Structures are given as structure tokens and as C-alpha cells.
């Protein structure tokens, strides 16, 4: 598991201790398909709303491409955490497009570096 994923793994384990929230690995690269039922929640499966799907950036971009039948394009998220967001350097890159177009209620960017030309590019357009 990549080091960044381990960091999140540990953090989620600690924070969600004895709560109904749980970490799922449904976005890991070794899992080829992501069934709609695993991510989206409905009245019959309310437990899915408490999941933390954790995935790599490469996995996310590969799943969002049109050739991958756009599995993530149709999912809804209440909260999105984008770690090391400075790597989304240009607006034409897949990661930026996902971050902009994904149906996410609240986007939380996490980075220690300035990755864009100006603060407006970095912050304003994402919100």
C-alpha cells in the first residue's frame, strides 16, 4: 500500500473508532469493477452512506475515463478529500477535470505547496 494511503488508513481507523463509519477499499487498483451498489446509497442500503472509499489518484483517473465506462462519473459524494492537491497542476489534467466535474457536495483540498499560477487558480475555481 502506498505511503499516503497508509497515512489515511491509520487516520481513518483512529478517527472512526467505535463509530458506524468504516473504511472501504473499493477504489483500490486491484478491484477491477466498482458496482454501483457499493458506492451509492439508497433507502435499502443506508449503511453505504457511512463508508470512506479510499483510492489512489491513478485509480481515480483510470476509472473516470470514457473508456472505463465512466464508473465514477455517476456517483454522488457528500464529501471529497483531495490530498496533495498541488499535483493537479493544470486545468486540462484528468485530476483537475474530475475534481471540477465530480458530483461532490463539499471538496476539501489538502496540500502544503502552491501548485498553480495564482491563488485564484488554486482555490477559487475549485469551490
Amino acid at each position: 500500500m502506498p505511503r499516503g494511503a497508509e497515512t489515511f488508513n491509520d487516520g481513518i481507523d483512529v478517527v472512526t473508532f467505535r463509530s458506524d463509519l468504516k473504511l472501504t477499499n473499493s477504489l483500490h487498483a486491484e478491484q477491477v469493477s466498482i458496482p454501483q451498489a457499493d458506492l451509492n446509497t439508497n433507502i435499502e442500503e443506508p449503511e453505504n452512506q457511512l463508508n470512506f472509499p479510499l483510492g489512489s489518484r491513478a485509480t481515480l483517473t483510470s476509472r473516470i475515463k470514457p473508456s472505463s465506462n465512466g464508473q465514477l462519473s455517476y456517483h454522488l459524494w457528500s464529501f471529497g478529500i483531495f490530498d496533495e492537491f498541488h499535483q493537479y497542476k493544470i486545468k486540462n489534467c484528468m485530476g483537475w477535470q474530475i475534481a471540477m466535474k465530480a458530483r461532490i457536495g463539499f471538496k476539501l483540498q489538502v496540500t502544503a505547496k502552491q501548485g498553480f499560477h495564482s491563488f485564484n487558480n488554486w482555490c477559487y475555481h475549485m469551490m
Partner: protein
Amino acid sequence: MSPSAQLVSEQLFAFIENEKKTDKPTQEVQEQVEDGKEVLDQDNTSLVLNTLVSLINNEFEHECLAEAVRLLIAHLIHQSKEDQVPGNKYTIAGLLRTKILAHQVWEIWLIVWRWDWDSDMLGALIADKMGPGKTFTSVAVATICKLLTEKVVITSLQSILWMNMPDVWVNMAENDYPGSIGEASECNLPHTANSVPSHHLEIQTTPPWGDPELTSALKPILVV
């Protein structure tokens, strides 16, 4: 500037004036520098300014921290000998195993507050330098947002009912933020230190902003 910040600045000014009157030998100043003690350079006004700004900023942060601690129901815990990270640590209701530093408490509260209240800000940026715990803060924020809206009206997916809202929030909302209901509440900017939007107490038929599907707390959290 708040009265306390003004008091700090006055004390600092008096300290500077006192230092100027003190005629320290060069050798003594040099020894203090080598010992790592802070020495006020009479000619370096930027140091004085930076110190003053730092003090004022800290004052501001502490004022906000008090509100964050109260509304997140955070409790100060004693420093353990096993703790590798120095500084005051808090526990937050709902996060049982976590020890959260003061600046993280403030960050968590600020983002949760924006997540729930600020209709124009559908996102946030954590840009701390490396080390203060950005990743942990982001996970804690997402978790608290989920816990706060865990109780939802299943029969109406667009509704958010603040069922497990802490009593302290309810009391404060009743006492400090009588506010109004519905559209009028949008005009009520948080003008008091302990403001809590009154719509937290209401069953919302629609979220206050955007596409209801996008802002529904029913959806999972994406971590990339």
C-alpha cells in the same frame, strides 16, 4: 483590535522601550544569541513587528479556539509522558481515540462551520506546512460532518434533521441566535461570537444551497 490584544501590544511596547533603555554589553547580547535566547534588536524593527503580529494572531486564534472547543464539546487532556508531540491536546465528542492539537480543533471547527453554514463556500483548503497534521484534520472533519448529520430523515432523502445536535448548541441557538426560519435566516449573518444558525433546529425540506443531491449527507465520502 480587541481590548486584550491592545493590552498585549501595550505591554510589548513597554517591553521594547525598556529594552532600549537597557545598555547591555555586546558580549552579553552575543552570549544570549548563542544560547538561543530571544534578543530584541533595537535596530531590527521587523523583528518587533513580527513579534507583535504573532502575538495578535495568537490572541485571535485563542479567542476562536474557545468557541471551537465549546461547540465541538472538546475537552483538554493532560499531557502524557508517552506523547511524542508537545502541546495541549483535546478530545472531541464522537472521536473517541483521537488526541487533537489546539490548532486542529480550530481548523476542524472552521471547516465544519463552513460546511454547514456558508452557502457560498462549497469547499475548503488546508494549506498548513508539512507536519501539523493536515491529513488527520481532513479525516476528522469529514467524520464530524458525517456524525453531525448521521440522523437523517430516511423518508425524505433531501432532508437533514439535526437530531444529535449537542445540547449546548441548542441552548446557544436559543439564547444567542434567535434568528428566523426559512429564507429570512439567510440574512442573519453570524454577528455574535456564539452564533449558531437557527436552521439547525429545523427540518429542512431542501438544503439551503445547490443541488440537493450534491449536498446530501447521505452520500459516502471520497478520499483521493
